[in-house]
């Protein structure tokens, strides 16, 4: 069943050895010239193709956006049906552009509040080939001043950090990735902890989990979490909203307290984001957070 010629086996052996050699080279700490050159070559093909797909995919994206918002807007379908088909598609395209403009405006607002200097970018891939890593590709690279270990935000809050920057594209590890850990603090009480992507071992299933180091610190659902900020603003600048505490877990005997976090950012619908190329001169503290929501408004 597995019989094969020697030559064929030799070919397989050579290919496997090459793969393993590449794996070893690339997983060693520090950049490797061979794989860096390979990635730059890949990017050379990818960047124009992605730009072309973005240009050609405009109508498709507006269609998708329309479908995604469909269930919420059933009553609006009646109104829209009155308009003729050409007008309708024009309207949808306009709405998508409007949504982008609104996202950019939010981004500008957030960067203005925090004193961050940002480079706007667009996500050109949103899923990875096998679905394990939560990473996206942005259409800006070192040519626009993006370097590795820079904070990525959007109008709502923290998106992640840059892990790989090529000349024209860069890879962002999202805050929800299992390997992501962000130094964070509670908004008012300034108690510090770490926001981990995915679920912490022993914790409940969630997108983000906040590990609070102080067992005595008061924390309850609705408390808001912002980034603590790292040394010289790399990889995380201070004051970016991360999310809201959903519930706190009491685990007897544990050395820290766990809280599930509702992310401030909608990671399923990332589009316009900003890479923070220069952090604020001083910690913006809680000024970037949106005003406290009025509880009566939700009723």
């Amino acid at each position: 069943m597995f019989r094969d010629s020697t030559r064929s086996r030799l070919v397989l052996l050579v290919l496997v050895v090459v793969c393993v050699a590449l794996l070893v080279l690339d997983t060693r700490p520090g950049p490797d010239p061979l794989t860096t050159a390979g990635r730059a070559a890949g990017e050379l093909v990818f960047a124009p193709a992605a730009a072309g797909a973005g240009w050609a995919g405009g109508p498709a994206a507006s269609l998708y956006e329309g479908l995604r918002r469909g269930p919420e807007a059933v009553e609006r379908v009646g109104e829209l049906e009155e308009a003729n088909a050409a007008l309708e598609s024009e309207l949808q395209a306009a709405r998508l552009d409007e949504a982008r403009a609104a996202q950019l405006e939010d981004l500008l607002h957030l960067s203005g509040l925090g004193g961050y200097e940002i480079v706007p970018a667009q996500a050109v891939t949103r899923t990875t080939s096998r679905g394990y890593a939560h990473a996206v590709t942005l259409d800006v690279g070192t040519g626009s001043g993006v370097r590795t270990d820079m904070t990525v935000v959007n109008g709502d809050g923290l998106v992640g950090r840059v892990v790989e920057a090529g000349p024209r594209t860069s890879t962002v590890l999202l805050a929800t990735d299992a390997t992501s850990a962000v130094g964070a603090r509670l908004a008012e009480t300034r108690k510090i902890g770490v926001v981990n992507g995915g679920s912490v071992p022993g914790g409940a299933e969630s997108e983000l989990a906040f590990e609070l180091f102080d067992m005595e610190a008061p924390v309850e659902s609705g408390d808001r979490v912002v980034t603590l900020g790292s040394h010289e603003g790399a990889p995380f600048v201070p004051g970016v909203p991360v999310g809201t505490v959903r519930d706190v877990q009491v685990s007897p005997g544990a050395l820290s307290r766990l809280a599930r976090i509702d992310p401030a950012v909608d990671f399923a619908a990332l589009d316009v984001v900003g890479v923070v190329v220069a952090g604020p001169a001083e910690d913006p503290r809680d000024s970037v957070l949106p005003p406290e929501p009025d509880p009566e408004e939700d009723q």
Partner: protein
Amino acid sequence: MRAVATVVLVTVAVLVQAVVVQRLPLPWGPGPDLVVAAVAAVALTARPATAAGYGFAAGLAMDLLPPAEHAVGRYALVLCLVAYTAALLRTNTGAQGAVGLRTGLPAVVGATASAALAVGLCYAAVGFVMGDPRVALGAVAVNTGLSTLLTALAAPVVTLPLVRLRDALADSDFATVQGPTSPVGW
């Protein structure tokens, strides 16, 4: 002619996967893997060494294209091994009785789904050996299951036309699949 057409179509599959499929904001994670679908078509119609070569090249391209979230060589290793094994099984078991017979749709979909399942499990296994903290049992089950299902759904539009094309181009220069155990009769 056959090789040129295959190289072009596999390249197109890799680019469409990287630029279009991975751009879709799918809420559940992985999309259909068109690269596996294309390589499966090659594995169904080529000798094991050729299939391994195509698998290696396509996998390496996916490793090098953004996003750079996994080590270079990981996908190339997995695709190379799976393509080789699929082609070996095909040459040594399926081909004898099937000389002159065309591979049917269920066989193509089944082979693509098996290849996708094997790729998913091998990719997770390589991640486990390399100590990737993302490889947990639940994540592997969900990602592999979804990816296999979606790739099987993509098989009739990606794998089947490519198999038919390679069969059609092979007929002109009588280069049917030949294994080490040569088929009985003519």
